[in-house]
């Protein structure tokens, strides 16, 4: 495995909203694991990609899910014609090669899986690989980053306290209107007026968080709507498809969103 495959060579489009890049860099320098907390589609993953590019470090990304086991992170023996061979998992690859390992939506994984990161996220910085009988010392440049959406927290799906306390956390919110407008403009390559209307819609929809919606419209959804509007679709139709239909099945909330969209355009 060539770790260079995981390097990000092109600068990701990311606009700083606060001092998050400085904070991340400080955490990286001190090898403190970082937890990114924020609503879906607000730019957490894009931020990690940007930081990996900025720091010139490879980025190994894992999308966590309920069926993920410790072996999926650490590695397992596989079989080929020559016999068995050990295959490093993404966490081991990152630890061995000094990469950033990014566990996206870490709370989706079962708690008995996520505890595997404990020993590598405290001052020991070691990863026990029991099946190999190896105690891997993490490379100096290894850095663990996780993300999760606090809005989906539940009694069942939450990180253990012992896991949470190994991290420092950066809170992400949707960017300020002007910043978000610029993001939509540049990501979707649309005019300022369209981006501005879309951001206004998102801003209003976020008032419905907890009052009909789990989350308001995300920046990602706005970019989808903007891109759709470039291909001959009216902005109203683009919003219907990318925002209204995607975010909720509740008919009353849908009607309210349509009214909001009509008011903003």
């Amino acid at each position, binding site marked *: 495995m060539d770790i260079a495959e995981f390097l990000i060579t092109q600068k990701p489009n990311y606009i700083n909203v606060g001092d998050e890049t400085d904070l991340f860099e400080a955490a990286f320098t001190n090898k403190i694991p970082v937890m990114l907390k924020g609503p879906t589609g607000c730019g957490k993953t894009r931020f990690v990609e940007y930081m990996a590019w900025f720091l010139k470090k490879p980025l190994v990304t894992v999308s966590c899910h309920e069926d993920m086991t410790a072996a999926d992170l650490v590695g397992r023996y596989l079989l080929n014609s020559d016999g068995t061979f050990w295959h490093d998992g993404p966490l081991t690859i990152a630890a061995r090669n000094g990469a950033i390992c990014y566990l996206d939506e870490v709370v989706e994984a079962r708690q008995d899986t996520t505890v595997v990161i404990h020993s590598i996220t405290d001052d020991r910085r070691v990863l026990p690989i029991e099946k190999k009988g190896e105690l891997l010392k993490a490379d100096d440049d290894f850095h663990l980053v996780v993300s999760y959406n606090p809005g989906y927290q539940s009694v069942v799906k939450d990180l253990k306290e012992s896991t949470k306390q190994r991290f420092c956390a950066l809170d992400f919110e949707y960017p300020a209107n002007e910043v978000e407008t610029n993001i939509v403009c540049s990501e979707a390559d649309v005019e300022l007026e369209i981006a501005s209307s879309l951001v206004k819609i998102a801003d209003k929809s976020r008032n419905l968080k907890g009052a009909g919606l789990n989350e308001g419209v995300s920046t990602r959804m706005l970019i989808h709507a903007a891109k759709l509007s470039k291909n001959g679709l009216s902005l109203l139709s683009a919003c219907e498809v990318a925002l209204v239909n995607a975010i909720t099945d509740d008919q009353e909330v849908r009607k*309210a969103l349509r009214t909001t969209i009509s008011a903003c355009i």
Partner: protein
Amino acid sequence: MEIKMSVHHKNRIKHAGYGQNVFKAYEDAVNKITIQIGSAFLQEFTNTVSYLCIKGGKAEAVLFCKRAAELRFKNLNDKMFFEWQKKISDVAKISPKACKVLLENNSTTTGSLDLSSWLDWIDTGLRYGANSIDNMADYFSLTNQVSLSFFNEHSGTLMFTNIKEQLKLELKSLFNITPDLIPNKIKFQSAAKQRSSFSDRVFLLPPTYIGSSKRALKTYQAAVFHMGAHLRYGKKSFEVGQLKPMQVAIVSIIEDARVEMLAGLELPGLNRLWTEFHDAPSSGINTAQRMFERLSRALIDPNFHTDDGWAEKGKRMFYQARDSWDDPRISRAIGNILGNELGQLRVQFNAKDYVPNPVYRDDNNELWAFPEAPSEDMQAHDLNVDLVEARRTTRGNKKNSKMQEETSENENEKYGIAKPSTVDEKSGRLIAKLPEFDYTANKLRKDWVSILEYRNRLGSSKYLDYIENEYSEVIQKSERLFSSLSLGPSKKLKRQAEGENLDLDASVDALISIRTKTAPEQNIFENRSKPSRSLAIHLLLDTSESTRALVPNSSKSILELEREAAAILVKSFNKTGDPFAITGFSSNGRHDVRIQTVKQFDEEFGMSNEMSLAGLASGYSTRMGAALRYCGTSFNKTLTDRKLILLVTDGEPSDIDVNDAKYLKFDTKRAVSELKNVQVDVFCVALGKQAGKHAEQIFGKSGCVSINNLSSLPTKLTNLYVKLTS
């Protein structure tokens, strides 16, 4: 021949001693109606007039004749006329008082509804007032919220209550505010003048915008967004000071425009919405009302030009002050100037008749700080004193009980949660009010039926022992059957000794072990677990009067057999551990749906339950839909995967206050569908062929079974349960 008939009928009324007034009214009506629809109506018409004279009074008969002559259903023909007068006659037979009220409003109601809707509206009224003539008269009077709500339902007018939740969401989204939205009290006759009003916590809205049916939703949206704009961009109230009523009105118009323009700058769609309602022509008569309307339009639409110099001046001043739109003082400043000019033009302003236009605009009362008590000054302004009083009592006053009652009544209650009540009835305890479906209006009527729990009559404490003896073989068979049942989702089991599929991880591990010359694990298969049993069942027993009847060739009544069947099931439930409840039901009208609780889910079956089961007694009628809904609420705290209501009945849904045979059937069908939507299954065991036919219509072929040999009920019920739950 026709002329002969006509003379015959006229003579009948003339010589009956009803008096000259009745005869004259009758003759006028006959002449007018005959021209419209011919004379086929005469016989029944004459009969009705005669009946009314005898039972209701001559004044009522005169009123009937007048209304008959004025009847204006579209495409009126003799068949329609006959249906109309038959219904009037039906109401008169039940209550002459209610009929009088009905006739008084006849022009209004028949002018707003087509015949079919009008007949349905009457039928709803007969049901509504089945137990109270006063209620029935009230219903036909159209003078209160309830009667207007019913009427507007039938006329298809969009009711505020239908869209209230949508409006709330839209206000939260656009303005991030959450006021209470409450329907205003309204007299039907003054509905066209009704406007919304607001405080910082409450928006009062007309229950319906009369005459705006085609764009009713937009009217409500325009109204709430307008009030939202006032809250967002308005500052503290204006002092009335020495302002005359006309100046107050004009300042209010400017302020309305100011907040709308500010809101429209942020949300251009709102500006488009409000502009739609401004349709004042550019020229016309120079009354205050018309000039105000031209001014309003000119302010919101800079492209509107009018011949009215005064309105144009107002527009110029308003737009010149554009940079100061965020300052409410400009409204007063511009309003003062325009008010003085209008006074000099000697334009008359009648505060009593004035209504802010367009229809979506509020009454402007919140803009003004009024003196403490309504005074002569206020009368002079004639700003709606009632609304001011209502708002004064609610402004900053969270404890206003009237508003709170209305707020709590209007809260959106989830279907299926029975609303508990602490009211004690003399012979039964009111435990819930539940909805009922009126198929004629296609409406689920909230809180229509009252569920009352009655104290159980207690039977023998040795009842289960008796059952054990009587049905020992049946009980043993069923216990064997039940122990092999299971329900619920199965789970994937890895690393099993046996299974249909290989567990990949376990297999790889085993091979690795082999290659590394260590002993491999033998459990390399995947399997699925048996489904875990997860079912709650509510046994609902019909205890209506008809269950008192003896089963053919038996000394036992239908209810006795139902009790015995239930007792056998209890034995089986105890074996399997399924949570269960047992309830007996009957009804005596919609205000008295009678529940006898034998056992609830959260209690163990003990002696008191045994005695309650043994003591179930027959009586009254069978309001099935209500009983099913009540049972549905009993599952609220059960956590099982499956929930089942097993209904045992010997008849069709019926009750003493319902004449329409289809009404309760449709309601029961609707209840079944509602329960299915919340994952509660319903299965009906119908006793007898006739009951089986009705059950099939309501529950569908797969939702019921008919037991014709009633003596076999105890055995068959158990077998049925096994079949249903396996």
